[in-house]
């Protein structure tokens, strides 16, 4: 099982790596950052979600429809923390 710290760092490094690959300017990462203001588009977020599924072994988006779509980076990290534990 992934620890809280490792989930957080997997998510943030995923954001940074995909931003680099896709030549996007990433906004400073904080829990309050609105995902759609992060500088990443849907394709970037899709790639991040796919890679997190590979590294953490979970896809919280597909886990159930009672999960609300995340709005901020904090929501996004929490989604993965909850799914990984």
């Amino acid at each position, binding site marked *: 099982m992934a620890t809280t710290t490792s989930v957080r760092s997997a998510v943030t490094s995923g954001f940074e790596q995909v931003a680099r690959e896709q030549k996007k300017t990433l906004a400073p990462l904080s829990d309050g950052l609105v995902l759609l203001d992060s500088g990443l588009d*849907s394709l970037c977020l899709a790639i991040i979600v796919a*890679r997190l599924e590979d590294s953490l072994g979970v896809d919280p*988006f*597909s886990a159930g*429809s009672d999960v*609300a779509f995340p709005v901020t980076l904090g929501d996004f990290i929490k989604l993965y923390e909850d799914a990984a534990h």
Partner: protein
Amino acid sequence: MPHTDRASLWSAAGAAGRLSERALLGAEASVTLNELVRGSSLGGRLEELRGRSVLVATRDQLTAALALIELDAVASRLVLCPPDLPVTHLPWVMATAGVDALVSDRAAPGPGTPGVRTFVTCTPRIAPVGPERNGERPTEWILLTSGTTGQPKMVVHTLSSLAGAISGGGTPANAAVWSTFYDIRRYGGLQIFLRALLGGGSMVLSSAEESTADFLIRAGARGVTHISGTPSHWRRALMSPFAHRIAPRYVRLSGEIADQAILDHLRAFFPKAGVAHAFASTEAGVAFDVGDGFAGFPAGLIGQQNADVEMKVEDGSLRIRSARTATRYLGDEDGPLVDRDGFVDTGDMVERRADRYHFVGRRGGIINVGGSKVHPEEVEAVINGHPHVRMSLVRTRKNPITGALVVADVVLTEELEAANGRVAELEHEIMQRCRETLSRHKVPAAIRFVSALAVTPSGKLVRHDA
């Protein structure tokens, strides 16, 4: 009932009434339909376009909308240039459609349009014109859709085939304000535009230059009641803090497979809205809407006799016959659009589970990344160009944000063991090659090195449809 007797888009829009209360609302400007009664967006040059084959290539959707309203039943052909058409395809498009006039909101013809006889500027500043516009010529509407070789296919419609699914005749009491995340020069967006015009509503047009947040704020401020998009558009909207700014009565999904999760999310987020997913394609037209909240569609829709839309499943794919299907392709390379019996093969593979059919993917593995099609062969060709690649298989991977992503299995020329030390380097080189030559959505999100790929007895790569 579907109307088949619409003389022109303008007369049908006018017949729906209340012109002074209805508007086309763009990101930068707006026009009420009333202004068009004795005004023109074409600077009084409409007559020059009579009987011509006109390419409508505007930057903005509002100017495109105005040109379409004015030119239907006047031009012989309207070629709707989507905003992302590569300039390199323009000469072929223009030659194939016999384009002899260009309508644009730019100051001068753009690159790729040499030798066009007539160039007319279209603007949202409506200028007064003399006599009332008239037109009775049936206009061919040409929509562009992506083809297998990257060259677009040109699909021929008429106003009646495009409007076949629209019942029209809204009542003032529930005047609709339509909107869509789509561009109206795509089939899905054009459907919404026509619904607004023919049904007596207004329309909020999206803009490529506007963020999701700004669009939602603007749509909310305009009181949007009916709004459509692909499942990917909607997932993105639901991730916006401004999603609650809109309070639609009707939410529509099309263009991609609507899974149960996105339907449930939308129902929970917009509890007062009817949520419907539609099946339509540029070639087949609108086939059906499903409003029961469940993914897939009732099996009873297949095989109905004498229905407006007849559907059957053959070799696993959905086939459709109706008055809403396109007439033909322009250009001879693409072959007939319908089979001997008049059915369009949609290429969408379906599977029956209990009393419903579900969409499982595209035949030939065409991958739909957030509404954009990817032909695996095109990506494989780029990967296979790397000197150390023997062969590759590009396939789809399900994704909760864009519906699907592209991933690649790659066989190297050397033994995998021998290349082991270089795997990260090779992966980087292959990715780099893809990024340099392919659109972003076509670049594999992941590469997996494998020792072999399955090949059929006839020597073809084994491709799985779903």
